């Protein structure tokens, strides 16, 4: 969960009252947040303060007020900054490369810079470049890479020291559909299969929805919405979509008699509002059996993250 429900000891990132201004522009407004282990999306329109937050977490910026702790280290102190950068992998949004080096040399050199031995960094560079799908091109100058390859090398360098926490700033930026799909697959694998904690910063809702478990929505430097995507996208009063076989008309009557609101759909299915009743699914099956119908499938209906995002941002504006 990306909210206060997690205990501090469980949280990989703890932020308390963080503020940052650039001149008269307030980038972050007393931001408080806790991020639990696992994949979390940091969502928000341009200028919401996403990149500023990541820079503050890495100690690249100094906050005007407040405190942050990342992987147990304080980015405001020199020792904390150096320590946290050993346990965090950062993939910047902008194009970045080391002049004159090949992809392999870049990843290897950055591994050494993080504290790996020369031999370890070289073998590790090969492993992570394999993982992101950079093959023979790793021996070519990185300046000549395509946008997709540059993005993958950026991910590889973030992984070279096998950090527990990844900060990924717009990782799908500038990618074609195939490259985007590959990048999202990698991020999904890292977050869900490799069990890495990651903070995925994006303004693309589908990317977050596909790869993250929790989400934090920033708007004008403040948290507009935070929580598990599953919880946030569940509608008020759980609804289920049922596919009915047999006597559908009698089943609809039985539902109405039992106080369930149902809406027929164009594809012959029914959407039933459960309104928080316990053991509802069982009751639906019982009603179907009594009315001579059968339920072929029952699935929960969720609102899309986009609807939640729009609603959350709108609520924030009203507040």
């Amino acid at each position, binding site marked *: 969960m990306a909210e206060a429900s997690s205990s501090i000891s469980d949280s990989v990132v703890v932020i308390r009252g963080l503020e940052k201004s650039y001149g008269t522009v307030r980038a972050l407004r007393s931001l408080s947040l806790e991020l639990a282990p696992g994949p979390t999306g940091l969502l928000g329109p341009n200028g919401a303060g996403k990149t500023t937050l990541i820079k503050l977490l*890495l100690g690249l910026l100094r906050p005007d007020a407040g405190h942050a702790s990342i992987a147990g280290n304080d980015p405001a102190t020199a020792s904390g900054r*150096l320590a946290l950068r050993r346990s965090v992998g950062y993939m910047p949004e902008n194009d970045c490369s080391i002049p004159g080096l090949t992809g392999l*040399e870049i990843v290897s050199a950055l591994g050494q*810079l993080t*504290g790996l031995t*020369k031999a370890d960094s070289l073998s590790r560079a090969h492993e992570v470049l394999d993982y992101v799908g950079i093959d023979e091109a790793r021996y070519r100058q990185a300046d000549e890479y395509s946008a997709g390859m540059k993005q993958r090398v950026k991910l590889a360098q973030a992984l070279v020291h096998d950090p527990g926490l990844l900060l990924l700033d717009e990782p799908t930026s500038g990618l074609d559909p195939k490259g985007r799909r590959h990048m999202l697959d990698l991020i999904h694998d890292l977050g869900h299969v*490799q069990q890495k904690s990651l903070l995925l910063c994006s303004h693309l809702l589908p990317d977050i929805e596909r790869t993250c478990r929790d989400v934090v929505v920033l708007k004008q430097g403040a948290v507009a919405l935070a929580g598990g995507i599953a919880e946030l996208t569940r509608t008020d009063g759980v609804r289920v979509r049922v596919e009915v076989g047999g006597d559908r008309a009698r089943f609809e009557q039985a539902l109405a008699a039992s106080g369930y609101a149902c809406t027929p759909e164009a594809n012959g299915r029914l959407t039933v509002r459960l309104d928080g009743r316990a053991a509802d699914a069982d009751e639906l099956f019982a009603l179907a059996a009594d009315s001579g119908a059968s339920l072929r499938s029952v699935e929960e209906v969720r609102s899309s993250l986009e609807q939640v995002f729009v609603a959350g941002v709108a609520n924030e504006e009203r507040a």
Partner: protein
Amino acid sequence: MARTDTQVYRPFRGTIGGSRFGFMALARAGIAAATKRKLPLVILYGPPAIATIIFSFVVYARFSLEAGVTPEALGGRSPASVIAAGFAKTIIQVREQIALFHLAMSLFTLLVIAWFGAGLIADDRRLGAHLLYFARPLSRGGYLAAKFLVLFFFGGITVVAPGLVICIVAAFASPDFAFLRDEGSLIPRSILFGALWAGAWGSVMLAISSLFVRKTFALVASFAFFMITTVVSVVLANLQDDNRFLMLSLQWNLQRIAGWMLDGPPMENLQWDVRWSFAVVSGVTAAAWGILCARVRRFEASS
């Protein structure tokens, strides 16, 4: 998701150290990147290498002539050997030859520093490399040390190596290694001067590089700095008929220090108190580091 047997994530099993000299990796990467392009290396190091060979031969010829060998015996009647033998007769001490080498090669040594130094920070900014560096356990001091080491390496080769080669030739050419006994202190002095030269010009070059986002602009600015300070100091010295105006130029001050440290041949127009030259060189170097610290602080914060 992993698709092939190679596209599988493998956890790292080794250990991550916390060495304070982690910046050396960055310095090594910088040197490796700079040495990939061979043509600039040949062009920039060719003339100093040739000059080193000639000066070494002159030293060898001088000791041989002292030992009674005739010029013809040194290399027949080839023009090069005749010229070298002629030099050997007129040119005096080894220390003076090292000082003369620095004077003769000053343009090339500056070219080396400018070529390798101009892009060191400018290219990092252009390609966004500092975004990658400062997300690592690398301090600003470590970053600057790495960049400085790269430049010190390339500058040092140009300034220190020729002096050492000439000294080694002199040591072996002199009877019973008399050179080491009589002029042995020249070796550390030569190294020290090389370090001072590479340190001062390296700092200036890095500071200039930090002010631009393109290597070309930094290169032009570095030559502008050299030309303006040198030309202005010469013009003022001539207009005012006072050679102390030459102290406005870093290059003239380093020449003055070279003359003092290496006991080079006296140069009439560089006769001011050498402490002034040290003060100027220190001041310029300190100013360069001030600029560097301020700029790199901004790079880290803006990355």
